[in-house]
């Protein structure tokens, strides 16, 4: 039994699960701010990839990881503004606008990477430092999991609470939900629906951009073409699985990243051969199960996906 536990190493399993859930949770929080106000944001994938690239490129040339993180967030906001203009002001179908951004992001980051960065010979910017929280990090089990992390993971843990508070306790949150459920009612109550949606879409870009910084600046200290590998879509699944609530989306992200980790350990420790592709399907399968109403219905904001046009 002890040998089994040693091989499985549950503390490191949980710790890696939390770390790999970071970009999923951040992008899901972003998607949530966006969808709660009535705009679908399938562009999370492209925004994260752009954030990963810009964050890395800026850190590379400035030799400063923190400027890189800030640049990743900013670039996310800029790409999200594009989505906002297209889908809110120009009434473009929100899915189409999002797909355009995703396809564009893969192409542009790939080209710039190959042209300017791939052959660069100077040393990379490295990765964000590990911060051990004094006292708390020495608590057994909990310490190594929660209090020996890097910046983006700490930021994620704080932002879960912040987004929850904003959505359900503040005036902004009430107005956001009103715009996502019944924009016309919000308008007649004197709320500027387009303004609320713009701010939320751009906020979602900031959150997803920070999620992008995880890949290049926290995880490996390098950029690779298409390194987000569909995590933006899994984040959307996590948001739905979590019923458009921050804590729920965090739980779903943990479930998805945890199942990934367990899958790879099954192979390395127990030599059980499950093809990776099957494990990769899990998030989507679970999402379908939830959408089909098997675990209590997940109800999307009523007006999500519909451009709002003043009369």
């Amino acid at each position: 039994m002890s040998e089994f536990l040693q091989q499985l190493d549950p503390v490191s399993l949980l710790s890696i699960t939390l770390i790999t859930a970071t970009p999923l949770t951040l992008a899901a929080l972003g998607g949530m701010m966006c969808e709660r106000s009535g705009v679908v944001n399938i562009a999370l994938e492209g925004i994260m990839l752009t954030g990963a690239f810009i964050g890395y490129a800026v850190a590379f040339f400035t030799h400063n990881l923190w400027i890189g993180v800030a640049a990743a967030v900013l670039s996310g906001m800029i790409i999200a503004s594009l989505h906002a203009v297209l889908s809110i002001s120009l009434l473009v179908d929100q899915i189409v606008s999002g797909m355009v951004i995703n396809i564009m992001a893969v192409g542009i980051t790939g080209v710039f990477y190959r042209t300017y960065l791939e052959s660069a010979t100077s040393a990379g910017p490295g990765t964000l430092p590990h911060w051990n929280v004094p006292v708390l990090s020495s608590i057994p089990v909990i310490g190594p999991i929660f209090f020996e992390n890097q910046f983006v993971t700490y930021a994620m843990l704080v932002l879960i609470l912040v987004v929850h508070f904003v959505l359900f306790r503040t005036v902004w949150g009430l107005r956001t939900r009103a715009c996502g459920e019944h924009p016309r009612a919000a308008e007649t109550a004197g709320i500027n629906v387009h303004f609320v949606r713009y701010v939320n879409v751009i906020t979602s870009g900031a959150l997803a951009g920070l999620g992008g910084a995880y890949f290049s600046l926290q995880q490996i200290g390098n950029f690779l073409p298409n390194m987000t590998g569909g995590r933006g879509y899994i984040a959307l699944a996590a948001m739905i699985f979590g019923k458009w609530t921050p804590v729920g989306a965090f739980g779903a992200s943990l479930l998805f990243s945890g199942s990934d980790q367990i899958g790879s350990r099954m192979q390395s420790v127990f030599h059980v051969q499950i093809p990776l592709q099957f494990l990769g399907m899990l998030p989507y399968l679970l999402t379908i199960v939830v959408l089909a109403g098997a675990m209590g219905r997940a109800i999307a904001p009523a007006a999500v996906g519909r451009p709002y046009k003043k009369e």
Partner: protein
Amino acid sequence: MRANDGVDLDVSWRQVHALLGENGAGKSTLMNIVYGLLRPDSGEILFDGKPVDLHSPLDAIRLGIGMVHQHFMLIPPLTVAENIVLGHEVANRGVMDLTESSHKVEQLSERFGLQVDPRERIAELSVGLQQRVEILKALYRGARLLILDEPTAVLTPQEIEGLFTIVRALVAEGKAVIFITHKLAEVSEVADVITVMRRGRVVGTTTPKESKSADLARMMVGRTVLLRVEKSPAKPGAQVLKVDNLVVLDDRRHVAVDNLSLDVRVGEIFGVAGVEGNGQNELIDALMGLRSIRAGKVQVDGREISNLSTHARLKGGLGLIPPDRHRMGVVLELSVADNLVLDDFDHPPFARWLVRQFNAIRDYAVKLIKTFDIRLQSPDQPVGSLSGGNQQKLVVARQLGTLPKLLIAGQPTRGVDVGSIEFIHRQIVSERDRGLAVLLVSSELDEVLSLSDRIGVLYRGRIVAVLDAEGADRDRIGLLMAGAS
């Protein structure tokens, strides 16, 4: 198009000012201008004697103008208090003070006698209570002039009485109320002053004392109208439709039609009266085969039809005027002619093998257009370009054109002008006289009362009483509709 053309309207404090007109007369457009949702191309609005410029509802709210829309502007998943304070939240540095919000709502509802629990979710409330929340919302924003847009459309007669009491109380407090409606009876009961609109213009301003219902109707329509349907007593024959202990579930899998039984005979109109949402739509769906039934029997001419497809039922002599015209009645993008053969487009004479027969379709369409007086430029124009009244006449024409045995008429005159209502009613009565059995399902009690030969009152999915229409007591039906036994 000019929805409002040179309109003048004067509203005074301490008055209920009724704005009377048919659908499409421009009442709602006018009120949307006053509420800042629309901008006028020319003209002036004075409030408290001063000219005002309204760019958005926010400007109107600031002046003390409140509006209760026909389709409620409430957000179902949010609570009563959240809905009321939305846009004018009680907050401390952006953080909601929910306790204080609820407290304020309670104070307000006590002051005006509008009882409602601020912590309840809107989705859990009845329509009457939702309307109360809408009124409270306007009062919370400091409304002194309250605009009520078709406020009685969704209420029971008793709830309408309650609303009138509230309106009178508000006026007694010194407020002004604009009451938009197309129902003549209400105007005489609640209004101090009446302005009648027709086709975007004001036809005249009067008071209930000066003008009787018939005069008002003439002003509204522009000609004399029959307020009652003229019909001879029914001569009912053999039973056509027989429904026994029918149980049907709604989309949320709750029981919507609960052990319902009724029968309709040749040459009679059986009217189902009831407030919307008591199982009407589920009953109609089940009879047409659009929704599966949980239990019970449905027989037409003594033959069980519950296992037949909708197509087979239409072939077997059922006709349907669907309650929601745009969802089920017409395809707005298709031409008038195509819509008229929608039930039958793939059969002779409208199709041979796989080829549609356009001449036959067109001839048939021209014939129906003439018989049913559908006003249009060409049978090839899309249905979406017709007025609501003409769209509805098209639906009626298509159904009666197939000469059914049994017509299920769901809200046959919803959103239709008075002139077309009269026409549609006359068509239904004359088909009845030729032996058609009609099941009329309508939430307009006046329509059920004037058209039916027998009336069944529907409450929570059950027919709670069946009465002869001759001499039926309106108040008693109203009470039954509200669930009194």
